[in-house]
């Protein structure tokens, strides 16, 4: 059977896909993951009235502490890789991989711009435009749970095991809530394809935040809980469990868990932007207006489209950065919840509320029709 036909069209598509993958990896692994380690330290320093992250220097230049990124990376590569006695060596090595790969893989369906017509070729700024988009995100993101659970289980350490049990319970609890809060968005836009949901929000008043305000708050809460960040960081609570599931990890293996966490923050920012904050659209300005503005006769429509693409990708990542800032602010503002409070919030408040949200959304849609 001829699964792939190697026509010119196919080769162009393949080239574009590789370009998009390169861009996404450069943005997540190359930019966000290292820079966010610095942002986290610097923002906490500012919020706590400290100077913070300003020691690493090259010939006396500190560049606001940005060299700490390089220092951290070098340090992690040079550290001893420690596996405790009695630990399962294979699973201990495997679990950081299981935690990191899903974090990167969810970006396959996350669009970072719209569709643009460039030199007679339709460019869709998403690596794989799957019709099951959102389901793919949930399916892949929940695979990361295995990485964390296996990490704790394979370490032969009491703290690690406690941490991983907490991780398992917390992540599956909030997965239910996360899935149910999204139902409202699906009902409103009638599709699971993330680029279509984004495209449907060109009109400012059609943004998800106006159509699903309760859904937005619940989704943001559930996704922060899913990412195990303060105030939901019981799986790695330093004051109770040393470091939770990664107590026995050192060097870059330990760094990989952190990388996964930071990349997931970017994912959360991206998904929230697409579902609730208009994706790559600027309020009150339609895509066609931007194209028309740049469509001078001497530039040609393709260049105008290219400029529009640049602007909209920039707008998208600006919104993502805003939501990363929100997550960081929450992390350095709130204290950690108790474990029973986390479970109560998930099962007794968010779950019934999301069911009510579905019914109310359904009735409102029907009445407006």
């Amino acid at each position, binding site marked *: 059977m001829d699964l792939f036909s190697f026509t010119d069209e196919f080769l162009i598509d393949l080239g574009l896909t590789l370009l998009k*993958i390169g861009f996404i990896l450069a943005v997540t692994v190359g930019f966000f993951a290292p820079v966010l380690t610095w942002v986290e330290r610097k923002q906490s320093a500012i919020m706590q009235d400290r100077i913070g992250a300003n020691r690493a220097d090259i010939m006396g230049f500190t560049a606001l502490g940005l060299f700490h990124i390089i220092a951290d990376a070098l340090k992690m590569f040079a550290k001893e890789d420690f596996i405790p006695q009695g630990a399962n060596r294979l699973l201990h090595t495997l679990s950081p991989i299981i935690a990191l790969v899903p974090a990167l893989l969810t970006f396959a369906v996350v669009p970072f711009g719209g569709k643009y017509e460039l030199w007679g070729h339709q460019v869709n700024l998403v690596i794989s435009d799957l019709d099951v988009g959102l389901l793919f995100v949930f399916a892949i993101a929940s695979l990361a749970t295995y990485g964390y659970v296996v990490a704790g289980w394979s370490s032969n350490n009491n703290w690690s095991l406690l941490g991983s049990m907490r991780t398992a319970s917390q992540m599956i609890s909030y997965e*239910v809530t996360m899935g149910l809060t999204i139902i409202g968005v699906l009902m409103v836009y009638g599709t699971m394809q993330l680029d279509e949901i984004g495209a449907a929000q060109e009109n400012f008043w059609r943004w998800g935040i106006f159509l699903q305000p309760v859904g937005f708050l619940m989704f943001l809460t559930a996704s922060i809980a899913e990412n195990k960040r303060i105030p939901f960081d019981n799986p790695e609570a330093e004051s109770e469990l040393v470091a939770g599931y990664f107590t*026995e990890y050192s060097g*870059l293996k330990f*760094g990989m868990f952190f990388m996964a966490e930071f990349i997931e923050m970017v994912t959360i920012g991206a998904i929230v932007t697409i579902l609730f904050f208009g994706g790559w659209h600027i309020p009150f300005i339609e895509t066609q207006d931007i194209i028309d503005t740049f469509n001078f006769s001497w530039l040609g429509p393709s260049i105008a489209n290219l400029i529009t693409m640049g602007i909209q990708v920039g707008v998208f990542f600006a919104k993502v950065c805003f939501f990363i800032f929100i997550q960081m602010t929450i992390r350095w503002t709130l204290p950690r919840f108790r474990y029973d409070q986390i479970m109560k919030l998930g099962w007794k408040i968010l779950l019934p509320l999301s069911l009510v949200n579905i019914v109310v959304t359904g009735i409102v849609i029907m009445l407006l029709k």
Partner: protein
Amino acid sequence: MLEQYLGVAILMAISCAIAIGMVTATTLLGPKRSFPDKDEPFECGESQIVSPYQRFSVKFYLVAVLFILFDIEAVFLFPWAVLYQRLGWFGLIEMIVFLLILGVGLMYVWVRGGLDWE
């Protein structure tokens, strides 16, 4: 159909390569100085007194069981939600009945104390 997933496959291959490369690098590059005391699992300066592999609070398993129930509910809701605007009032009433049945289930678990953590 399959071509749609080509991008996913390529991204998966590359991210696996990145992850495996990182683990390999940290295993090869770091120093290797081990002695018996250092190799022990961390236990606040003590030797490990009890093995971590023993009986665990049943609460965690109960949550897993509840998760399966309610996640399957969410799975049923996904296709319904996408088609909702075409199904109309019939779809709404149908789903309210479905949610009521599950709501009764949730109430039962709640009243029986299945959601309590002390």
